């Protein structure tokens, strides 16, 4: 059974958190727009032209009054999409790492499996231009998350995910910054969501490498998670 593009795509919302992504966001929106009409960009108080460029490219743009972090931007986008009656919510990176062709496959597998969310996995799929050190760092992060959440996953820091409205509504992201990736997984375990992992392609360009997470960010994420655990 093939994914039905006409009947389903209008209920799918693509959520793109963006912080100073003016250089890339128009291309990303154009690519996404070839398949999905509902695109919401959350401009996390960028100092560049992100909002204007994104709006010109045809996306709905929400802007945080000050910088809150990617997790907070995702949550804002999810709440907006739900308020517009979204059936499925896709989180998509603004730096051009993700490919929109992967999303219909994820939606299809989500439908077929009856799961609550689909997670993209670059280690089941392919990566273009990923450095060896980044691969190792991501593998280590995955191992850490496997141990702390008990979930069998191959790639836990992939921003490409598809949520059903039910799962998105129950998941309340409180980690404003980068630890939200692990928070989503903790939410999966807590709410007993079913998930499927779908192979996707991640392309590392010079642009995305520059914008992406660095090695020290891993420590920041780790600290946020420890703090969250102590305080929850």
């Amino acid at each position, binding site marked *: 059974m093939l994914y039905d593009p006409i009947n389903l795509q209008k209920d799918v919302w693509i959520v793109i958190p963006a912080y100073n992504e003016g250089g890339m966001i128009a291309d990303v929106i154009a690519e996404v727009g070839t398949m999905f009409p509902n695109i919401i960009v959350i401009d996390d108080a960028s100092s560049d032209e992100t909002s204007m460029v994104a709006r010109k490219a045809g996306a709905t743009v929400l802007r945080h009054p000050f910088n809150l972090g990617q997790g*907070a931007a995702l949550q804002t986008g999810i709440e*907006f999409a739900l308020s517009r009656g979204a059936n499925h919510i896709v989180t998509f990176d603004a730096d051009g790492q993700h490919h929109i062709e992967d999303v219909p496959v994820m939606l299809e597998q989500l439908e077929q499996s009856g799961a609550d969310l689909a997670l993209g996995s670059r280690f089941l799929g392919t990566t273009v231009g990923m450095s060896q050190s980044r691969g190792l760092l991501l593998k280590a992060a995955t191992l850490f998350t496997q141990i702390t959440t008990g979930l069998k996953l191959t790639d836990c820091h992939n921003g490409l995910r598809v949520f059903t409205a039910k799962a998105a509504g129950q998941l309340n992201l409180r980690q404003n910054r980068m630890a939200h990736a692990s928070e989503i997984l903790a939410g999966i375990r807590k709410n007993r969501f079913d998930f499927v992992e779908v192979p996707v392609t991640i392309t590392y360009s010079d642009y995305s490498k520059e914008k992406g997470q660095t090695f020290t960010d891993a420590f920041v994420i780790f600290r946020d998670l420890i703090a969250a655990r102590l*305080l929850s």
Partner: protein
Amino acid sequence: MIAQIILTLGLSVCLFYIISLGKSLPLVRIGLFLVVLTGYLFIWFPEMTNIFAGLVGIGRGADLVIYLWILLSLFLILKLHIKLREQSEALTTLARHLALRPDPDEQPAKNSK
């Protein structure tokens, strides 16, 4: 004697502040009140610290005071951290609410022309 007077004055400022809190935060107020009272006691009867220290198995009174101080500081830091987190969550909610307002940017643009 000079040190004792200065310390007493310092503690008295704290006491004044605690009283000025009025009826808010009853637990915090009582806690701080006890801390100040213990402070007065130890300032004017330093040998008391030795007695208390001996009771709980610490060699010197000064050590007891330092340990209590460290414990108190850690507790306060934790308390402040939680408070800050609460504040930042409230701020996030507020910011999100602002961002989710209908047509935040389009409306003024139309009006200005």
